[in-house]
C-alpha cells in the first residue's frame, strides 16, 4: 500500500473492561471516501478520536502521509492536514457562524501571537471563511450566533469549519446525526459534491445506509471494536458475516 494516505495497524483502546477498539487495521487511499459502519457502541467514534489525536491508543500505530503520528497531539495532526467533525455538534456557541469558520481558517494561518490588528477585519481570515460558509449553504446565516442556528445548520457549520482548514483528510463522525430527511439529503449532496472535486480523502462514519452506499468507495465494518470486513460496497452488501452482524436487520426490514 504505497499510496495509502492513512495507515492504521493494531490500534487498540480499552475503557476498563470494554475494548472499544481491538487491533484495528485500516488503510485509506488518497482521494477515496472510506465509510466506517457498525452498530452503536462498535467503537467508531473511539477510532476516529485516536486518528484525530484526542484519544491516546493503548497499542498500535497510525501513519499519516508517510509519517508516524501516533504520539502527536491533536493540534499537531490538524496542522498536518487532518480535520474532523464531531458526532455531537461542537461549536463556539457565542461566536457568529462566520467567526466560527474564521477561527478554523486562523488555525491554519500561522501562529496567533498577534495582538494588534482586529481579526474581524482581516480579509485573509474572512474571505476563505465566507467561501466555506457558502460552500455548505450558510452564506445568508453568517452573522447569526452559532447557538441560534437550527440543528441542521449547526451540522453544516461543523462541515464548513472542517473544510475551512483545507484538510488532506477529513474525518466525519455521523454528519447526518439527528437530521431530518430533508436536511440529511442536503448533507449527502454536499458530501457527494466534495467527493466529485476529489481534493481530499474522506473517512465517513455513518448510520444512514443510503448515505454510505451513495458515497463510499470502500467500506469497513466494525463490530465490538473489531474489523470484520473491508471492501467495495457490493462486497460488503454480499458479505454473509456482515449481514448477520449488522446489515441483516435492515435488509430483513
Amino acid at each position: 500500500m504505497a499510496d495509502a494516505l492513512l495507515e492504521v495497524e493494531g490500534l487498540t483502546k480499552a475503557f476498563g473492561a470494554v475494548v472499544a477498539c481491538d487491533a484495528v487495521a485500516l488503510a485509506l487511499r488518497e482521494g477515496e471516501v472510506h465509510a466506517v459502519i457498525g452498530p452503536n457502541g462498535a467503537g467508531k467514534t473511539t477510532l476516529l478520536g485516536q486518528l484525530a489525536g484526542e484519544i491516546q491508543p493503548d497499542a498500535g500505530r497510525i501513519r499519516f502521509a508517510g509519517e508516524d503520528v501516533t504520539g502527536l497531539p491533536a493540534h499537531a495532526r490538524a496542522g498536518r492536514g487532518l480535520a474532523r467533525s464531531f458526532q455531537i455538534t461542537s461549536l463556539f456557541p457565542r461566536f457568529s457562524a462566520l467567526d466560527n469558520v474564521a477561527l478554523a481558517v486562523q488555525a491554519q494561518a500561522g501562529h496567533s501571537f498577534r495582538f494588534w490588528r482586529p481579526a474581524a477585519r482581516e480579509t485573509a481570515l474572512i474571505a476563505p471563511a465566507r467561501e466555506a460558509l457558502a460552500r455548505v449553504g450558510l452564506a445568508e446565516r453568517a452573522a447569526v450566533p452559532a447557538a441560534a442556528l437550527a440543528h441542521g445548520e449547526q451540522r453544516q457549520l461543523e462541515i464548513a469549519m472542517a473544510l475551512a482548514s483545507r484538510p488532506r483528510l477529513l474525518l466525519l463522525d455521523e454528519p447526518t446525526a439527528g437530521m431530518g430527511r430533508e436536511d440529511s439529503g442536503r448533507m449527502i449532496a454536499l458530501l457527494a459534491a466534495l467527493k466529485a472535486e476529489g481534493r481530499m480523502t474522506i473517512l465517513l462514519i455513518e448510520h444512514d445506509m443510503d448515505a454510505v452506499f451513495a458515497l463510499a468507495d470502500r467500506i469497513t465494518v466494525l463490530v465490538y471494536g473489531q474489523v470484520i470486513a473491508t471492501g467495495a460496497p457490493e462486497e460488503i452488501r454480499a458479505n454473509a458475516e456482515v449481514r448477520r452482524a449488522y446489515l441483516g436487520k435492515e435488509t430483513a426490514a
Partner: protein
Amino acid sequence: MARPVVTRLFIWGALVLLLALPPLVQGLGADFAVGVATRILIFALVGTSLNLILGYGGMVSFGHAAFFGAGAYVVAILAQHDTYGEPLLTWPIAVEGTQSAFIAWPAAMAVSAILALVIGVVALRTSGLYFIMITLAFAQMLYFFFISLRAYGGEDGLSLFARSAAGPLDLADDVHFYYLVLGLVLLALWLKRRLVAARFGRVLRGIRDNERRMQALGFPTFRYKLAAFAMAGAAAGLAGALIANQTEFVSPSFLDWQRSGEILVIVILGGMGRVYGPVAGAAAFLLLEEVLSAWTDHWMLVLGPILVLVVLFAKGGIWSLIDRGGQADG
C-alpha cells in the same frame, strides 16, 4: 462591534470626570478623594489583568494576589536596599537596590510575569476546580514565603521611605501620582481592547468556550493560555508596584487569599469578559467598602447580598447594566 450611543457617552463622561477629578475635589476641599480614586484605579488595573485570563480565557485563578503582592514586594525590597546602600545580590551578578520607577516597576512586572510562567506551567495542565485549587495553593505558598522573609519584615511587612523616583513627575505629590496611575490604567485598557479583538484574543475566547474544539482545529492551546497567564501576571505586578507606592508599605497580607478573592469579586461584580467591567467593579467595590466600613465593621455582611443580587440579576455584571444592548466580549 459598535457600542450603543449611551454607552459611549458614559465612557467619555467617565473619562472627563477622571481627568478633571483632582481640581474638582480640591475645589470642594475633599483632597482625600484623590487617594481613593487612585486606589480604585490600581484595583481596576489588577482586575483588568485578571479579567484577561478569567473573562476572556476562562481561567478561574484564585491566586491572582500572588502576582500583585510580588510586584509590590519587588518595589519595596529594591527601595530598602537602595536606602541602606546594600546590594541585593553580589553573585552571580551584582544587583543594586533602586528607587527609580523606570527600573523598579519593570522589574516588578518581570518578576510577576516569571512567577506566572512558573505557576502557569503547572496549573494550566489542570482545569476547573483543580485549577482554582492549584492557583490558590501557589499563592498561599508565596504568602508564607514572604512571612518567612525576616530581612524584609516578615509578618509585619516593610515600609517604604518614599515613593519611587519618576523623572519629572513628583510621585510624593498625590495629584502627580494619580495622573500617572490614570495614564497607566488607560494605556492598559487600550492595549487590552486591541488584544482581545486581535487573533490572540479570539484564540483565548475560543479556548474559554470550547478548548477541545480549538485543539481539533489545530491550536496548541496550552501555549496561548500560558502566554495570557504571564501577561496577566505582568500587569498585576505593575498594579502591585503602584499599590506599594500609594500605601508606602507592603506586607504578606497583600497576597493572601482574601485579597485574591477581592480581585475575583471586582471582576465578577464589574463584568467578566468586558473590557471596562473591572473598572466599574473596582469603583463599586471600593466605594461600597469606603461608605459601608465607615458605618459598620461588618460591611462584608452588606456587600455579600449585593454581590448575590448582581450575580443573579445582572449576569454580565455592573457593566452590562451600563452597556445595555452592548455585546459580550467588548
